[in-house]
């Protein structure tokens, strides 16, 4: 009897799980408003366990999963104007005077993953689409670019990390990273992805403003050099 009830339960579950996702996919806007009102604030705390055990529909998985997961589909970015962006107060008259992001983004190169802003800021700078001032008072000041890459070899199977000083010194001053965040000495900086995700080392910028850590291959970009080493089968 116990087995039977479990079986029925799972059959029901799978049917139920597929139905609303299809509804959401076909008619997102009008359904959303009314149903969001129907499920009040109490829905939020119980929401997180739902998507974990079953991997239901791709459309739903993308939204339900942490956006950190690079394998999940990311919701399309809408870049709403300030009065509709959810952070700013639409009742504030001056909010409407602020520049909407799409006015700028329309001409900028997009990043592959569509994560972060969805903008490839390094390409935007290289292509001359944006010309950020290097000195706030002097529009002609140029950055002192240092072209030196540092290769780091992770312990696991991920490709090696190539850190390009060039792209970083086009935006930043040496003192932004050295010596507080990175000791300028080979081998002196222990780091791992957990620390980075928690906002240390690279994570001071990457994951907050610079492209997020979910774009793995932008840092882990060089195949591992494993020619002669390691046990042979």
């Amino acid at each position, binding site marked *: 009897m116990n087995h039977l009830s479990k079986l029925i339960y799972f059959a029901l579950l799978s049917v139920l799980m597929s139905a609303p996702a299809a509804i959401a996919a076909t008619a997102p806007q009008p359904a959303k408003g009314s149903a969001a009102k129907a499920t009040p604030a109490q829905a939020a705390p119980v929401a997180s366990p*739902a998507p974990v055990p079953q991997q239901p529909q791709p459309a739903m998985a993308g939204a339900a999963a942490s*956006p950190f997961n690079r394998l999940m589909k990311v919701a399309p970015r809408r870049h709403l104007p300030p009065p509709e962006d959810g952070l700013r107060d639409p009742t504030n008259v001056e909010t409407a005077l602020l520049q909407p992001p799409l006015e700028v983004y329309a001409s900028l190169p997009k990043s592959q993953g569509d994560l972060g802003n969805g903008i490839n800021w390094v390409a935007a700078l290289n292509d001359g689409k*944006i010309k950020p001032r290097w000195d706030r008072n002097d529009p002609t000041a140029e950055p002192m670019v240092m072209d030196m890459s540092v290769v780091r070899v992770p312990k696991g199977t991920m490709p090696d990390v190539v850190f390009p000083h060039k792209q970083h010194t086009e935006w930043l001053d040496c003192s932004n990273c050295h010596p507080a965040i990175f000791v300028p000495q080979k081998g002196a900086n222990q780091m791992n992805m957990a620390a980075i*995700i928690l906002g240390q080392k690279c*994570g001071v910028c990457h994951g907050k403003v610079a492209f997020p*850590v979910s774009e793995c291959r932008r840092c882990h970009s060089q195949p591992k050099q494993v020619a002669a080493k390691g046990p042979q089968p």
Partner: protein
Amino acid sequence: MQSLIRRTLMSRMLLVWSLVLAATFVYTRPAMAEYGDVVINNYSDKAEMRPVVFPHWFHRVRFACKVCHADLGFKFKAGGNEIDMLKIIDGKYCGGCHNGSIAWSVSNCNLCHSGKPGTPTQVHESTLQELATPARSSATK
């Protein structure tokens, strides 16, 4: 026995439906404000001003990171600079540019103090925010 099964099924169905509804309608809301928008609410709420929303994207198309984070001394920490209006009027932090000559002056209070009242200090959509507090971050989007 039949009625017992039916009753447990009914209650489970309700539970499943509420979970499904919650997952669908809470989590399909895409991020709305921009990645890297910083809300600074150290003193604003207490002073009955709207919190400040600092749009990183707007500033980075105009100034290199270094201008604020090296020259003006902004730490890489949301709310970690303890900025108040006195410092800004003295030409520190935001006041390095928001002085009426490079950018708008401090008399345009509500252009910066434009956040929804009560919004906590945060880097909007940061990895940490997404991972640590998914329920709250989707509520503030």
